[in-house]
């Protein structure tokens, strides 16, 4: 590998090259830093870049390897993360103005796991204010811009995670997903994003948007990269009582099963909050056809009406967000973007009984979904975002009001948020480009704790296609 190509390699290739001592972690880190220098002005993906600290960390990782100590399959790999994962004593803004100078009292469990695995930290990434917003707008720190077309949105709320992985500035990044916030930026930026089963990954030490719906997960360039990263961060955590004690499978070892004989349900819903655009539908159909050629049995499935499920999610988010933000909303409301503050306010007026019923309904929604759309199939294939990516300007709810803009923004999460309510795993994988040259993402949805199945299908798909190999210029 030549040094100027290093940043373009994927995570597993770099990790394996470092492990075999064909390259050093310092070389990989320098390659990422050079890439950041070139792409940060175009994307605004980073809020803070830790150049010296990252190089020192990489040097330490190289020294450990030279001394015969390996920390595992991510040893020496440079990454950066959404600026909502706490690191004790360090800044953590949550994308907000309110916490612009705030320092975290603890380190997030997932960062601790990545530290133990030898990951090098290049810095922290842009995000929607307090993880509230599906587009990547941020009035406090500047909007994040899509590496494929800087006039277009990145998706959110993990905007910097999508943009930095898409632009090859980092090999992997943590995002978080309350209504689509990993899968939307993954789809919009042409990368892979996993929202695993609720309880699979610890939320301890991460800024909450909604305790009941938040999911922590990785964004990477390939499915294999993603499987490796999830394998490191998943698992039970005594600091997050909602985590599961189910053993974490070796996702990477399970990738190669192929799709021959697997049953995949294809859903092209046209009755969600936003109608399905024809070119997006064609890209998803083409992905289904590709999986069919690999031996999967693809059949059409109909999704249940998600309206009640979507509204129940809104009740949970608004009530929980209103409760946690109340002190700031009372004392310093002007420090919020208007659209962030106003989206929470209804939470003060929803009766507690309705909030509790929304929580109680989830069990029924899961049972209904598994016995209908997922009955007899191993995974459901559907779009991540149902329309071509709009521009930053046309979705700017802070400067452009009106029902049409609000409807378009709400339409982003129409096909993602239901799976947060259901808590089941959902993977976004690049599957083409729209007529504007912006990426399109497919979404694979599976049974609870069946992340391995989604990775297996996604990996087979990437083995037969090249969408994920394209790099923005």
């Amino acid at each position, binding site marked *: 590998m030549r040094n100027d190509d290093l940043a373009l390699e994927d995570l597993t290739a770099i990790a394996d090259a470092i492990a075999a001592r064909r390259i050093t972690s310092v070389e990989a880190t320098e390659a990422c830093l050079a890439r950041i220098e070139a792409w940060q002005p175009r994307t605004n993906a980073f809020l803070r870049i830790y150049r010296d600290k990252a190089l020192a960390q990489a040097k330490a990782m190289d020294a450990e390897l030279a001394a015969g100590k390996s920390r595992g399959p991510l040893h020496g790999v440079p990454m950066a993360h959404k600026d909502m994962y706490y690191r004790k004593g360090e800044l953590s803004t949550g994308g907000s103005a309110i916490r612009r100078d705030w320092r975290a009292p603890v380190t997030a469990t997932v960062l601790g796991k990545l530290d133990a695995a030898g990951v090098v930290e290049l810095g922290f990434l842009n995000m929607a204010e307090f993880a509230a917003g599906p587009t990547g707008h941020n009035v406090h720190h500047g909007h994040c811009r899509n590496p494929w077309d800087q006039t277009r949105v990145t998706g959110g709320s993990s905007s910097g995670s999508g943009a930095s992985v898409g632009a090859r500035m980092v090999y992997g990044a943590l995002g978080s997903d309350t209504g689509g916030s990993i899968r939307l930026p993954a789809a919009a930026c042409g990368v892979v994003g996993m929202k695993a*089963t609720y309880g699979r990954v610890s939320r301890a030490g991460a800024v909450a948007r909604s305790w009941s719906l938040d999911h922590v997960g990785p964004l990477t360039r390939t499915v294999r990269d993603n499987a490796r990263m999830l394998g490191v961060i998943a698992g039970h955590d005594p600091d997050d009582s909602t985590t*599961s004690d189910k053993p974490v499978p070796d996702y990477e070892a399970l990738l190669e099963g192929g799709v021959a004989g697997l049953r995949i349900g294809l859903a092209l819903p046209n009755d969600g909050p936003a109608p399905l655009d024809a070119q997006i539908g064609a890209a998803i159909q083409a992905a289904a056809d590709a999986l069919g050629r690999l031996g999967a049995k693809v059949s059409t499935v109909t999704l249940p009406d998600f309206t*009640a499920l979507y*509204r129940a999610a809104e009740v949970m988010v608004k009530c929980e967000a209103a409760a946690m933000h109340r002190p700031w909303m009372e004392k310093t409301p002007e420090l919020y973007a208007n659209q962030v503050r106003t989206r929470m306010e209804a939470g*003060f007026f*929803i009766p507690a009984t309705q909030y509790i019923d929304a929580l109680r309904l989830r069990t029924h929604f*899961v049972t209904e979904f598994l016995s209908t759309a997922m009955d007899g199939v191993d995974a459901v294939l559907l779009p991540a975002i149902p329309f071509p990516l709009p521009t930053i300007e046309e979705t700017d709810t802070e400067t452009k009001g009106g029902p049409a803009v609000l409807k378009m923004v709400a339409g982003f999460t129409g096909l993602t948020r239901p799976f947060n309510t259901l808590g089941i795993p959902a993977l976004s994988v690049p599957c083409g480009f729209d007529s504007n040259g912006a990426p399109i993402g497919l979404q694979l949805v599976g*049974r609870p704790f069946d992340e391995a199945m989604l990775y297996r299908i996604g990996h087979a798909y990437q083995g037969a296609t090249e969408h994920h190999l394209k790099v923005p210029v």
Partner: protein
Amino acid sequence: MDDKRMHEKTKTVAGIAAGLQGMTYDDKRLAELAAEVEILNDAVRKAAAQRLSFDDDPAAFASILAKEART
């Protein structure tokens, strides 16, 4: 929503804001909030009436995910 019902809902939200939550909003915002709350409230109430019974426990959500796990 007809005007009279809308007015009643807005008055209710205004009462909660001032009387229970210690918050103040202008009339326009109170009307917007009333409309938003009505949509969410009605959707959950209807879904709950169709599905929920006495023994439904929010904590069953984690159990159903574990029980339905493929692995």
